């Protein structure tokens, strides 16, 4: 028996959940808490990475299963989470961040492993509430409390109406009128839209972008938002609602219309973003809209592209948000300039390439698939996504040019190039993925097959 066989699938989940209160107890000793957090995240990621294919486990009556997408997403998101923890530890110590990071890690694993739609959703909701503890800082000099309250309200509202819709779905008789299912699916979609901050439910994200620390934004938009998109696809698959959805053209139109609105609207907001952080957040909103269009096409390439966009967007957004934080700190209250932190500026610009989905990074095939399927569905839809991408390119160029407005006297890196180094490592990983896209896309394709099977059961 190998070590991988001996380890129960629930072990990494239990490890992260149990280490969170331990990290809370030692949080004032930042180095100890950071090392404990990093060690636990690494152990959990390695356990998931080496677990056998289709490994399963049970926690009471809840079943856990590790599929290829679960493995890919869990390892990727835990790695991004680890990068944020390193940045917080070395660059901007915040002692309450570490237990929350461990809790979010546990939630990411739960979302990827649980097979029950309601339990997955409840776990996700816990994860989306945890970062509230990191959003508030220096409360007398900013509006971070107001931003955290608004986030709490949006997530609570979206979370509870979504839970209610999922609890109701299996109790409805099959001979219900179609309008009932349409209404139920609209409620479920709005529930996810509130949590993902897609347009028109983005106002809390806009306030957060302006007031919350960069590392907290990275935790939310880099780790939890991609997990929410994957949870959306998984919950749709597990809820048993897909056969009804496929018969209702209105629901598909809603998914595509709202996704396209968010893609275009987010990109438009990004073009007018007054600072780097808001640029990143609006770019994420636009990319998530595109991901929802991909899933909403109910086609293999569309679903693969949508989920790929979500994962890569998380990594690139983390890269840019950490770099933006480093640039702001180096600027000391003035406008962020590359001259003060050249490596962070380089990481920021490189992150933009990932968010736009330009080759050679692995973000490219995902965007290509979604745009291709959008054109196959309707010309206006494909055109809308292309316009959104062009607007994002323009927005990223605008802020990048502003960063280099005073030129770059020297390429000598800043004194503590933590965010810059992390950003460049993330970018290197995305470039490597771009040269071997099959490794990244095949696990998502396996999930897309299961999704399509649930959509049209024999």
């Amino acid at each position, binding site marked *: 028996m190998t070590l991988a066989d001996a380890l129960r699938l629930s072990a990494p989940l239990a490890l992260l959940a149990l280490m969170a209160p331990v990290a809370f107890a030692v949080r004032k000793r930042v180095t100890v808490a950071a090392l404990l957090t990093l060690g636990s995240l690494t152990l959990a990621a390695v356990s998931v990475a080496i677990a056998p294919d289709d490994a399963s486990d049970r926690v009471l009556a809840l079943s856990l299963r590790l599929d290829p997408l679960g493995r890919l997403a869990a390892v990727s998101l835990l790695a991004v989470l680890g990068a944020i923890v390193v940045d917080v530890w070395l660059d901007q110590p915040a002692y309450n961040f570490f237990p929350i990071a461990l809790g979010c890690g546990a939630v990411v694993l739960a979302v990827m492993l649980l097979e029950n739609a309601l339990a997955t959703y409840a776990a996700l909701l816990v994860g989306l*509430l945890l970062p509230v503890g990191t959003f508030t800082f220096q409360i007398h000099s900013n509006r971070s*409390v107001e931003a955290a309250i608004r986030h*709490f309200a949006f997530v*609570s509202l979206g979370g509870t*109406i979504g*839970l*209610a819709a999922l609890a109701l779905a299996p*109790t409805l008789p099959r001979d219900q009128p179609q309008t*009932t299912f349409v209404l139920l699916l609209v409620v479920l979609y709005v529930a996810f839209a509130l949590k993902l901050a897609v347009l028109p439910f983005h106002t809390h994200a806009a306030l957060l972008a302006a007031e919350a620390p960069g590392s907290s934004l990275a935790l939310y938009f880099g780790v939890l938002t991609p997990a929410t998109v994957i949870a959306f696809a998984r919950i749709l698959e597990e809820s048993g609602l897909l056969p009804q959805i496929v018969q209702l053209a209105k629901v598909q139109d809603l998914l595509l219309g709202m996704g396209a609105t968010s893609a275009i609207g987010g990109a438009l907001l990004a073009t007018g973003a007054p600072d780097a952080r808001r640029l990143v957040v609006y770019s994420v909103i636009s990319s998530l809209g595109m991901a929802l269009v991909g899933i909403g096409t109910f086609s293999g390439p569309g679903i693969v592209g949508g989920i790929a966009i979500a994962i890569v967007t998380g990594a690139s957004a983390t890269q840019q948000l950490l770099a933006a934080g480093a640039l702001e700190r180096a600027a000391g209250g003035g406008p962020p300039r590359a001259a003060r932190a050249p490596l962070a500026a380089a990481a920021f610009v490189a992150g933009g390439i990932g968010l736009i989905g330009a080759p050679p990074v692995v973000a490219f095939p995902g965007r290509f698939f979604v745009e291709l399927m959008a054109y196959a569905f309707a010309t206006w839809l494909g055109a809308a996504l292309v316009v959104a991408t062009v607007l994002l390119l323009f927005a990223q160029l605008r802020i990048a040019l502003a960063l280099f407005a005073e030129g770059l006297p020297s390429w000598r890196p800043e004194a503590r190039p933590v965010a810059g180094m992390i950003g460049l490592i993330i970018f290197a990983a995305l470039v490597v993925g771009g040269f071997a896209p099959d490794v990244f896309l095949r696990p998502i394709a396996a999930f897309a097959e299961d999704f399509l099977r649930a959509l049209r059961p024999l």
Partner: protein
Amino acid sequence: MALLAVVALTTLAANGAARLRSMSVALLAVSIAADVIAAGATTPGQLAVLAAAGIAAAGILFVAARDGHYGEDPAWRVWVATLIAAVATPVAWISFRSLTPEAPDIPLVGGDPGNVIVQVAAFWLLSSGTAILITARHAVRTTLGALLMLTGVQLLIRLAPGPQIELTVAVAWLEVIVALTGAFLIVNERALRE
């Protein structure tokens, strides 16, 4: 039917409370009434979990208040929230009921054949919570709205197929996390105001 009235009145009391401690006591009353309504479709183990979650959530808010004066005056919001809930509850029940179209025979006191009371109470709590959340401006009423909605979700879960005790525990944990997050924000907001 009488229990439904108790849930409605305790919800109104929580909605109208201007002080956090009064609100937490009313919230506990809502939770107890919801537990009694769900008792027919619930095992003793689940009831214990539900009761513990209700007490913990209300207790966390009670402690977060720090004194008997702190709170949030709902003003006109109490009427808007009540009106929205009164309109939304029958609409939601007609749209989503999982029962037969025949008019059920519901006694004033006692049993709940067909779980009509459970469903109506769940929709009332969800509608009230939604209305309170939408009209809330600060952390106190935002937390109240979220907890009322979760109490409604616990009732709906009683009727859903699946691992009941596990889902009850999961949503009970969620209630505690929501209460803790709300308390954290209430304390921060108070520090900011003072």
